[in-house]
């Protein structure tokens, strides 16, 4: 057995569908126990990549290992060591919660002594204790997602691949889901997770941004923010939000409403703060607070995609 600290390592991973290059020569290296975020807009090549790593799709080119097993030749060995949750919900809709869990227990060869314990664990993790006899298709999205996660990790695999696990789920369920992922990571499980929600990037230890099949940026969330965000974001707190925004916008300051606050993006912070104060005073809008904040990754990625 390999005792390396690397869970996933690929070089030059490529997938062509006819003439179309869906994944273009990407390199990835993921450490054990890491939450690795794979971000990109729809059609970027996230699912194609994840399927190649899970042994579900044969790469057109490239080399690499997942859990120490060759992605080209040892797909079946890889499948013994991973949990995979596909983008489309793919448990059995016509089975009950419990029947789905029993089924995947059997498929993963979870032995009888562990079976009951794992069933209890999944039900608790997904908050489905009182819904164990419910037919799966009747469950709300958030529950389905957590059940799917539970079924994918019944056998306690060291590496888990999650393909857009939070798409189409309400914000509270999304937060819960990320908490679960965090818990798993603490248990030394490596997590490869894709998402097209840029605001989820901050939950990850490391990130890669994929766009049109190419990785265009990689690093920790902070590294990315520092490296790619050279402008400043100011948070402005006023009572008359809409009026304040109009005034600032008219005077050529990039401004957006964030809840009850305003975010202004500026090049020179020292000049901008007094200017905004002046403008608001002239318009008789009382200013409660103005300060610099750390930009979100969403801003970084929007900027990066515009450049590519």
């Amino acid at each position: 057995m390999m005792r390396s600290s690397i869970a996933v390592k690929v070089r030059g991973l490529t997938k062509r569908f006819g003439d179309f290059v869906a994944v273009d020569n990407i390199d990835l290296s993921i450490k054990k126990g890491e939450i690795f975020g794979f971000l990109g807009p729809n059609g970027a090549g996230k699912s194609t990549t994840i399927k190649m790593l899970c042994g579900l799709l044969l790469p057109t080119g490239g080399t690499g290992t997942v859990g120490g097993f060759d992605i080209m030749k040892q797909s079946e060995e890889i499948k013994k060591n991973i949990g995979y949750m596909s983008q489309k919900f793919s448990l059995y809709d016509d089975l009950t919660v419990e029947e789905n869990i029993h089924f995947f227990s059997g498929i993963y060869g979870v032995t009888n002594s562990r079976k009951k314990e794992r069933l209890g664990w999944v039900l608790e993790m997904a908050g489905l204790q009182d819904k164990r006899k419910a037919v799966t298709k009747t469950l709300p999205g958030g529950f389905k997602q957590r059940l799917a996660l539970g079924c994918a990790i019944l056998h306690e695999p060291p590496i888990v691949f999650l393909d857009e696990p939070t798409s189409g789920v309400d914000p509270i369920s999304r937060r819960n889901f990320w908490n679960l992922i965090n818990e798993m990571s603490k248990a030394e499980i490596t997590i490869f997770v894709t998402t097209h929600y840029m605001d989820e990037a901050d939950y990850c230890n490391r990130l890669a941004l994929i766009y049109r099949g190419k990785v265009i940026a990689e690093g920790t969330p902070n590294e990315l923010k520092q490296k790619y965000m050279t402008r400043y974001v100011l948070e402005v707190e006023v009572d008359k939000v809409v009026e304040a925004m109009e005034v600032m916008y008219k005077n050529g300051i990039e401004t957006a409403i964030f809840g009850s606050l305003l975010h202004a993006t500026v090049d020179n912070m020292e000049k901008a703060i007094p200017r905004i104060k002046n403008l608001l005073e002239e318009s008789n809008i009382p200013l409660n607070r103005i300060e610099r904040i750390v930009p979100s990754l969403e801003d970084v990625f929007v900027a990066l995609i515009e450049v590519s």
Partner: protein
Amino acid sequence: MKFIRVKAIAKKELIQIWRDPLSLAMAFLMPVMLLFIFGYAITLDVNNLKTVVYDLDKSSLSRELVDSFRASGNFEVVGNIHEQKEIDSYLDSGKAFVVISIPKDFSEKLKTGRDTSLQVIVDGSDSNTATIALGYISAITDMYSQRIKGVRITPLIDPRVRVWYNPELKSRNFIIPGLIAVIMAVITALLTSLTIAREWERGTMEQLISTPVKVPELILGKLIPYFFIGFIDVIFSVLLAVFLFEVPLRGSPLLLMLLSSIFLFGGLSLGILISIVAKSQLVASQISMIATFLPAFLLSGFMYSISNMPKALQIFTLAIPSRYFVTMLKGIFLKGSTLKLLLFETMLLSAFGLFVFAVANKKFRKKVI
């Protein structure tokens, strides 16, 4: 091969069939209904058909012919007519179903050893009965002409009516065992042809093939529930045959079940193979219908005897599993055949099953494309 995985798949499949009324109906109702409907349609015996005779010959020979119609019990002569135009009024009013018209030169031709013909008009509105009546008529005229030293009498049949099924007019005892084979051939392939394709369509296959499950485990797990369903269908069909259609079961019921199991294994494996190749339920069900129904109906020896087929076609029938099953069922039902007598069929049917099962395993790839 892990038993726990095979069991998990078999159990899941069974739950899904059980929850889906359509699957249930297809599994349990369809075979019995098909046997019932086709069994009756093909083998309905008709007696005392109202018949009028238009005898232009009026000889002892023509009277003898009419007598043999009467003696068969299938025809009841309700009258004689003397003019052509009366034919229509009899048929239209429903007073007669069949009109037998004997030409003027009937006996003269027979006596001089020449072939002659007979005009037969049948009410075609009930095509089923008409078909059966025509069968009787040719059988009776055949027998009669054989008595008259091999002179041929051709019944000229009203063109509105065609003998469509059961052209050789085999009796119920011959039809029903073969029919069971045909129906089971179609049902087995149809049942399993949906299972793999359905999982691709619903997206559940993607999850399944990301697990360490092995291909033979998956296929076997899917076969097992349908095997039991098929087994129950065979039992139902045999019961129907014996108690409703009164076909004698002269051989061992145990042997019948054993050989049916071998056939089921092959048929179900074929359905799985089709499902693997097609990946869509619609395509899979259509392929399995065509791949099983036509050969089973036309080339298995059920409708047409294989020995009467052209040599090339005869060789081709060796590749049709229902051919062996038809022989087995007919043999066990009617002749009380033993395993020793059916050894050839048993071996080839087993070989077919194992071959298809192996191909299905080879064709299934644990990849999304």
